């Protein structure tokens, strides 16, 4: 036993945490959604929709209407909109979504803007039924500003030199080396656990038990993969031999991945003259599940 424990530690025995062996909740019983920024090109939306909400919507719009409707994320660009009322966004973008997924990575249409995501049904006659509205989130521009400050002018050539010196070419690079080193720092003690071994094993046992108890459930799942990246502005990029369109030097495509399939996706970039090429191979395998 520890010799020099602070006196408080030994005053009373520690009671067992009544919840220590429970997993975290799957939801919190409230229909809501949250939108988080990930980088200039991506946001993350997660949500919970309660049975009560579904019941209410069915009673309001009728089962048939909802069945025939598509479930979508309507992403509103609300940049500069002081108060968003559902209809006054600068622009909006619809994207299909599966409600059961409970979260979704959204490819940002334009960088440096503010967004609100509405989850809802798009009915056969084009009517939008709101299920949940997210918070507002902004994504960074991801590039040098075009706005120049009159009071703080600099000669363009000098600014380009400064950019180079400032490490504009390194942005986002180099940090991975730091990350490797920092994570090594934690690795040292990771080999096995010490005092905590009892609690780990009981934790694992409980998870198995939960799975056994819940028998009357159903599950459906499918899979799409998203290939995304960026290339020099005037490069011509192809995926699997097919040329794709670049927006601001960026690209993104979705591809369905059926069970048991292997997909090769060679990504090639070539310059206009066609004498320089770069290639990245991506191979996706979806194992045949049971």
């Amino acid at each position: 036993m520890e010799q020099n424990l602070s006196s408080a530690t030994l005053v009373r025995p520690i009671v067992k945490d009544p919840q220590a062996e429970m997993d975290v909740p799957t939801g919190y019983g409230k229909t809501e959604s949250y939108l988080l920024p990930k980088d200039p090109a991506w946001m993350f939306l997660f949500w919970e929709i309660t049975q009560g909400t579904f019941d209410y919507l069915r009673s309001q719009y009728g089962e048939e209407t909802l069945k025939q409707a598509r479930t979508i994320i309507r992403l509103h660009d609300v940049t500069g909109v002081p108060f968003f009322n559902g209809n006054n966004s600068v622009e909006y973008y619809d994207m299909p979504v599966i409600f059961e997924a409970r979260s979704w990575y959204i490819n940002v249409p334009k960088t440096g803007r503010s967004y609100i995501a509405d989850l809802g049904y798009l009915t056969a006659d084009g009517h939008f039924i709101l299920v949940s509205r997210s918070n507002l989130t902004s994504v960074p521009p991801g590039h040098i500003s075009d706005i120049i400050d009159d009071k703080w002018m600099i000669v363009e050539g000098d600014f380009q030199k400064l950019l180079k010196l400032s490490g504009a070419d390194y942005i986002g690079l180099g940090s991975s080396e730091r990350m490797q080193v920092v994570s090594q720092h934690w690795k040292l003690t990771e080999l096995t656990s010490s005092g905590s071994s009892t609690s780990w094993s009981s934790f694992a046992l409980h998870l198995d038990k939960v799975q056994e108890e819940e028998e009357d459930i159903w599950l459906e799942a499918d899979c799409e993969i998203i290939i995304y990246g960026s290339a020099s502005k005037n490069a011509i990029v192809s995926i699997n031999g097919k040329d794709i369109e670049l927006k601001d030097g960026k690209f993104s495509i979705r591809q369905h991945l059926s069970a048991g399939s292997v997909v090769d996706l060679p990504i090639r970039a070539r310059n206009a003259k066609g004498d320089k090429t770069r290639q990245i191979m991506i191979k996706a395998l979806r194992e045949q599940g049971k």
Partner: protein
Amino acid sequence: MGNEKGYLALVLHAHLPFIKHPEYPDFLEEDWFYEDMVETYIPLLNVFENLTEEGVDFRLTMSLTPPLCNMMADPLLTNRFSRYLNQRVELSEKELHRTAGTEFEAVARMYFDKFRRYKDLFENRYHRNVLEGFKKFQDMGKLEIITCCATHGYLPLMVHKESVNAQIKIAAQDYRSRFGRNPRGIWLAECAYNPGDDKFLRDEGIRFFFTESHGILHGTPRPKYGIYAPVYCPNTGVAAFARDMESAQQVWSAESGYPGDARYREFYRDLGYDLDYDYIKPYLHSDGVRRNIGMKYHKITGKVSLNQKRAYNPAEAREVAAQHAGNFMFNRQKQIEYLSTIIDRKPLVVSMYDAELYGHWWYEGIDFLEYLFKKIYYDQDEIKLITPMEYLSIYPENQIVQPSMSSWGDKGYHEVWLNSGNDWIYRHLIKSAERMMELANRFPNAQGLLRRALNQLARELVLMQSSDWAFLMTTGTAKEYSTKRTKDHVKRFNELYEQIQGNRINEAYVYELELKDSIFQQIDYNVYSSAAKEAVLAKY
């Protein structure tokens, strides 16, 4: 202003997540703290002591994050560290005899001398509280200690500004209680900046923070001086200083960075594996499994297997560290000289590193810093070490630029902390924050047990928000521990929340959590009230 051509601001970020397990006599992950104490934090203080004794003036900016300060001041952890250090002294003394007359004699002597010196500093000079040491150098004007988000919480992924406000306010209060003044600067966890969060910094009197280079390069309007001068955030006037990539690369680069020199200490060859089991067993954890114990007798040598590494030569390694310090200074001189031809003021180079890189990972990094400070002081007058506040007093007028959202993580934004491997945590982090606000708004004047329960609820929330857990889930190191820590805090939070909601608070349960998750003794749950947030937003 003197004759110098420009300035160098050295910034070290010292951080560990709050890890304390009073429920176990011996806990593996607590070693992270003990290792960094003996390899980085105390050795740094030792450098400051040496420099001061020799009359070398130096400047360093250093974050000591609130969790780290809480651990440094914790009686249980410092007692356990004292035992850890005593064991090292004891083992290194035995080693003096065992290695006498062998090629390892010099390195064994080095460990013995260092451990004895560190023990003397820790026990006798700082009375087991190294914060005393850091405070001393801050009060002397050599060291600028800055704070960090309360638990290294990742601000751009906090939806509720109440959470941002609380991370800053709790940190500032903790800082004041330890250093007797307001923090003037902050290291935003992972340098993750979200436009507008500077309002909460300003409200605590914080004058500056640091960003990754593109935080300023991608700012609006274009930054006239690139990253070689700070900018002021609009409305708040809080200054943002950006990281210089050239000096970062010199240290971090896997290929060309200093730490890879063949004459430096090899990290992976450790006495914990090399010595006879019975001899080393008393210095291992209670489970008796061989692990690194932090004493290493070999040098990197080259690209050879671990068993072909050659004996470490401390004198040779110190000499290399001195050369590298000279090279680093030379490169800064050249860099600043060139920058002076482009910009119309004295350039500032901000070199930012994790503190634990020095000593823990790059063993000779501590010697490197000591040599660097000395060389800059004795050998030249072109560059001058400076703190951000000193720079702002020389150049109070700076361009107003809205810095861009950014972080110093891989790819420059939030992916390390938000990806398919860890995105599940945000459902709980955000919900817990919402529930915390709800209760803070409902009980503005709680007393007695309810107050204790609400304060503990706030502790569970901030501990859950440590960015370290998401980071470790991504890197895959200590994934099990970080997942369990996240879940534990979520569960404790929810249990306590239900007890408060149901008006059935279990005092024994609150007590147990106060003991285990004992960070921020003086926390006040009212920082989560919406009124507290609105009060800040109304000002700026």
